[in-house]
């Protein structure tokens, strides 16, 4: 790599600028990575909680539904479900966590009142209410899990990308730049040494020539000056 670089002072200055920029970038990215990891750990704790809520809510919902199907009959439960036409609505918004855009899911009409579930109140039972309640709660938890786990995955992707960038700077770009800088510095020093040596040689040569010139007898001294023409 270093052999491709022309050992000039201009290149050295450019490399030094790049090193400076890369080091600053490295520090910033390292801070971002650490910040992201801290945020991720918070989200991870939240994700663990909502996942465990999801498991317990699902178990409860399934159990109440099983009991309702057993005691009221499958036909009655299916009929009550068919009476509902209005489905929950979900709106997707986004929020920014350290530059990572994560979804924010807002749900409406998930939790319904007794008079909004479609089936008649007078002829139905608490078992159907409790199964509907449990499934409404489950749906709310599923939406929350979707929000938290998507945020977690996006954070994880960003951490991975940032980590790759930090590593690329730390283990590839910066070492190469240092190597190039060293190479150019060595070359420039070598050139400088050569220059000094050359100058020294020239100086020595000049001095030698001067000394020789001083040592030679002045043949022109006392001789008649010839006429120009």
């Amino acid at each position, binding site marked *: 790599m270093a052999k491709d670089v022309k050992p000039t002072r201009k290149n050295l200055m450019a490399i030094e600028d790049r090193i400076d920029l890369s080091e600053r970038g490295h520090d910033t990215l390292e801070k971002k990575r650490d910040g992201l990891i801290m945020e991720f750990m918070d989200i991870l704790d939240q994700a663990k909680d909502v996942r465990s809520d999801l498991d317990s809510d699902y178990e409860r919902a399934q159990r109440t539904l099983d009991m309702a199907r057993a005691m009221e009959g499958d036909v009655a439960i299916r009929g009550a479900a068919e009476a509902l036409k209005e489905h929950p609505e979900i709106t997707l918004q986004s929020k920014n966590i350290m530059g990572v855009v994560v979804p924010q899911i807002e749900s409406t009409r998930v939790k319904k009142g007794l008079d909004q579930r479609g089936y008649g109140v007078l002829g139905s039972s608490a078992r159907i209410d*409790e199964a509907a309640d449990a499934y409404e709660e489950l749906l709310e938890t599923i939406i929350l899990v979707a929000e938290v786990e998507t945020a977690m995955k996006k954070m994880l992707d960003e951490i991975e990308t940032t980590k790759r960038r930090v590593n690329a700077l730390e283990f590839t770009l910066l070492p190469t730049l240092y190597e190039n800088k060293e190479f150019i510095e060595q070359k420039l020093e070598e050139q400088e040494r050569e220059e000094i040596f050359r100058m020294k040689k020239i100086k020595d040569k000049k001095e030698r020539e001067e000394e020789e010139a001083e040592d030679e007898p002045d043949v022109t001294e006392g001789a008649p000056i010839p006429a120009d023409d």
Partner: protein
Amino acid sequence: MSPQTRTVGSSNPEYVNARVRARRAALFDEEEYRKLVRMSPSEIARFMEESEYETEINALGSRHSGVDLIEYALHANLAKHFDDLLRWAEGSLYEFIANYLRKFDAWNVKTIVRGVYAGADEETIESDLIRAGEFSDRELDRLLDARSIEEIVEQLSGTIFEEPLEDAFADYEETDTLVPLENALDRTYYEHILDNVGSVSGEPDDPITRYNEFLQAEIDFRNARNALRLARTGADIDPGEYFIEGGALFNRREMSGLVANREELLTRIEESTYGDRLDEALEELRDAESLIAFEHALDIALSAYADRLANRYPMTIASVLSYILAKEREVDNIRAIARGREAGLSEEEITEELVIL
């Protein structure tokens, strides 16, 4: 559509009671439930194939399987038995029984309305009907042919459901939910349950007085469970809209006040004539939020009351009523066992849910 008219002529409780006694003796007993609880759904179906339910299991075996087969066979058998009751009864006895069995007419109309509302095909809707009410097969088939809810309401003209459904239809069109229609159907059933009961003497030994008390208890229990459900939901609902006339526990205005104060509502039930029978369930309801155990206790109390009446007045409508409840109980129990086994519930859990008297 017009209701069947079998009210002409004298009543024949002796004949019907004799037939009902034989039917009642054939119902599953505790020992048979104990066996069923230990069986898998397919074993239950096989057990039923060798019992009273043989015809229905064989007839439906090619269309359904598993627990669905059991449930549909139970419905078909229930319908056959209750249809027999209406066939045997004459005069005022027919009226009493028909009044009570109209709950299946309400169920069937609700099923058809829900099917049409959800866009289900005719075959699916038909399989969910329980042909145990007063409507004949031809009348139900005509309802099944209806393409819209408006058409169903029109088809019901001449029945007890005509006027309430027409009123509720306007609400349905406004809200596009089935709640007003379903409530109107159930309310009509309950409010007509006391029709034709005749003069109540108030004498303790008068069977009509006791029968009237039983029907009132059924309405009271329905009002009590609905009041508790409304109290639990906390939604901004007018409780008066869900009140069924005919009970003795509280009136419409009282119910509105009691729904707002759950504790007062529980105390009111506790201090009523039903308090002794519901004592334990009320205590449990105070401790736990779930209403299920309380509803279970209401079902047991109602069945036990009907059985007591039947034992005390064996030659009256009380025996028929007690048989109807016992048959429904059997159907509910077998279905609970089969569905419970399918869902993997333990023997203890299933046994706890059964109503065995």
